[in-house]
């Protein structure tokens, strides 16, 4: 279980507080207006920002003071998910070993992960020569080899077309199944949440609601969500 315990963060005029738990294996979508703090919440979990108060706990272990690389977290950003000067295989391999000294077995894992996301034969290519969809697949291949229990998505597919985005979300679903991970994703679109998420939290007005089962939420949306969705 991921536990955000009385977290507060103030940056300039912006304030966010959160106090909630995410069950292991659930798939949580964060929904809310831009600037409400969805990405900030992911940054707190991933370790890019430190809270003013409160703790981040994973399976009762305190993560609050751990640097990002040592948390049980894989994260995909909106962009720059690859080092453009390294090959796809190297980019995926970094998920296994930061010094890239891969054993035979680890190299096989990289190839298998790339095969799994449909990028066989692209090992030696540089990210810049891949299409947007292929780059997303390669990033997911890295999440596969990392096998970290928490997977965070900060709208990595925002630049893709609607059909491709659905495809990617399905792939994410598969990856989560296989790694047995817990997914937390930022989303602007209720459809994305409905397509993949088991739970939704609404981020608005400087707070985060506790996760609510997706169908339940959309059947009976709270005021903050109604304001966001409009109509």
């Amino acid at each position: 279980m991921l536990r955000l315990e009385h977290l507060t963060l103030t940056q300039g005029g912006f304030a966010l507080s959160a106090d909630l738990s995410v069950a292991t294996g659930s798939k949580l979508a964060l929904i809310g207006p831009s600037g409400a703090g969805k990405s900030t919440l992911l940054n707190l979990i991933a370790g890019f920002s430190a809270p003013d108060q409160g703790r981040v706990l994973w399976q009762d272990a305190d993560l609050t003071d751990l640097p990002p690389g040592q948390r049980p977290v894989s994260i995909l950003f909106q962009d720059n998910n690859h080092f453009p000067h390294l090959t796809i295989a190297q980019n995926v391999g970094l998920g296994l070993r930061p010094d890239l000294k891969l054993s035979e077995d680890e190299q096989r894992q990289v190839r298998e992960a790339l095969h799994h996301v449909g990028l066989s034969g692209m090992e030696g290519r540089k990210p810049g020569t891949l299409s947007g969809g292929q780059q997303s697949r390669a990033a997911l291949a890295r999440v596969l080899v990392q096998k970290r229990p928490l997977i965070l998505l900060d709208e990595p597919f925002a630049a893709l077309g609607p059909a491709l985005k659905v495809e990617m979300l399905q792939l994410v679903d598969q990856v989560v199944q296989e790694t047995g991970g817990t997914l937390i994703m930022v989303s602007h679109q209720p459809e994305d949440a409905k397509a993949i998420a088991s739970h939704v939290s609404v981020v608005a007005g400087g707070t985060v609601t506790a996760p609510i089962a997706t169908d339940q939420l959309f059947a009976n949306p709270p005021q903050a969500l109604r304001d966001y969705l409009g109509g």
Partner: protein
Amino acid sequence: MIRSWPGFLAAGLVLLSLIGPLIAVFLRAGEAGFSDLSFSAADQAALRFSLLQSFLSASLSVLLAIPVSRALARRRFRGRAILITLLGAPFILPVIVAVMGLLAVFGRSGILSDLLALFGLPPVQIYGLHGVVLAHVFFNLPLATRILLQAWQDIPAERFRLAASLNLRGWQSFRVLEAPMLIRALPGAWLVIFALCLSSFAVVLVLGGGPKATTIELAIYQAFRFDFDLARAAMLAMVQTLLVGIVALVALRHDAGQALGGGLDRVVQRWDASTAVARALDACALFLATAFLILPIAMLVWDGLLGLAQLPPQVWAALRISTIVALSSTALCLALAVPIALGAVRHPRLEAVGLLGIVSSPLVLGTGLFLMTHPFANPIDLAFAVTTLVNALMALPFALRVLVPALRQSEADFGRLADTLDLRGWARLRYLLLPRARRPLGFAAGLTAALSMGDLGVIALFADPNRATLPLQMFRLMSAYRMEAAAGAGLLLLFSSLALFWIFDRGGRGHVEA
């Protein structure tokens, strides 16, 4: 996260190498008793000449740069990109080579004098104040032009569109749009050039001299070389440090913008510049500036080709020494610059340490290093080591200026990704920072190598008669009036400086994607 301690260590070493010699100078001057050291009439004349020539050089460079940069900013023509690249070239052009080229054009037996003789006029005289100013304008007109061109391009294109729709023409649009920009940009450019000319050495060594045309920098050299009066050299070194330090501090407050990098390839659409007079003026400015920059170098190349056959064997030995010095300087400079630049990503103040190199004059550093070493060793034996060190320190600010923004950018773009992948220390350097900084690294290495190859400064203090770097060897040939051989050596020097720059810069470009 990038570890910062190597940056602080390197910065500490730089600080030590810059401040140590200053302390040595201060102590030596104090030992002689400050009161006993009168600031003689000759020293006062040197101070006046330093200020006068810098004032004239900076003013002329900046004034002439106005029409040239304006023409470049608003005209699109074939060869514009090459011309802008050419404007960056004096930076890596060995000073002594340019001076020799200027002699071939403006000297007593240069082409200008030949031309005047056709009309029965006497030859021009290049030695003295106007020669020094001419050479400084040759070097700094391009710099001023690049700084002003940047400022010109900082005027948003929309303003010119607005001006056109309001039917502002020629002088009116100049007053409304361009004059305010110039008022902001000119002082910074002027100050930078003023500071550079104050600590210029090689130009004054060749074209100045004598009681009427000696700068403080040259006076240090003379006190050292001719009188071996260390106390006086130390006193002059202190005056020079104060002078350049004050000007550099003022100049830094007026940041003149970065004219080192690229981004000058944009032409703003102008509706007020289509008249025939405006076109003719721009063409004229560009033609004269180009001729002024190219002619001396072309003459040197021509004379040099003829002189190659007469090269004495010392020249080849000097070429070897210079190459070794240049490569060692480059290695040392990068070994200091990379950790400092990495540290400066998180601690911006570290970069300021490198900037101190701009404030220190090479001859002052040389004097200090001489004072520090001569109780223990024969400074002449250390000539090349000292030259290597001083050249590396002098190139450091430029290397940092190129490296820091690149590293900062790659941290901004990819730092978080590297953090989640737990890329630290050596792995982060190898897989993120160095590959991303490859181009600026190559460029910085090229600059350092070329600057060091062409440098004629501190080596003049230390050198023994039998061994020399190539620029010093060339100067000796000129002093011995062996002009053909000197031109040959100059061509060799020009070629090796440019080649070193090209090889490193090219290596940095490599085949890097994205």
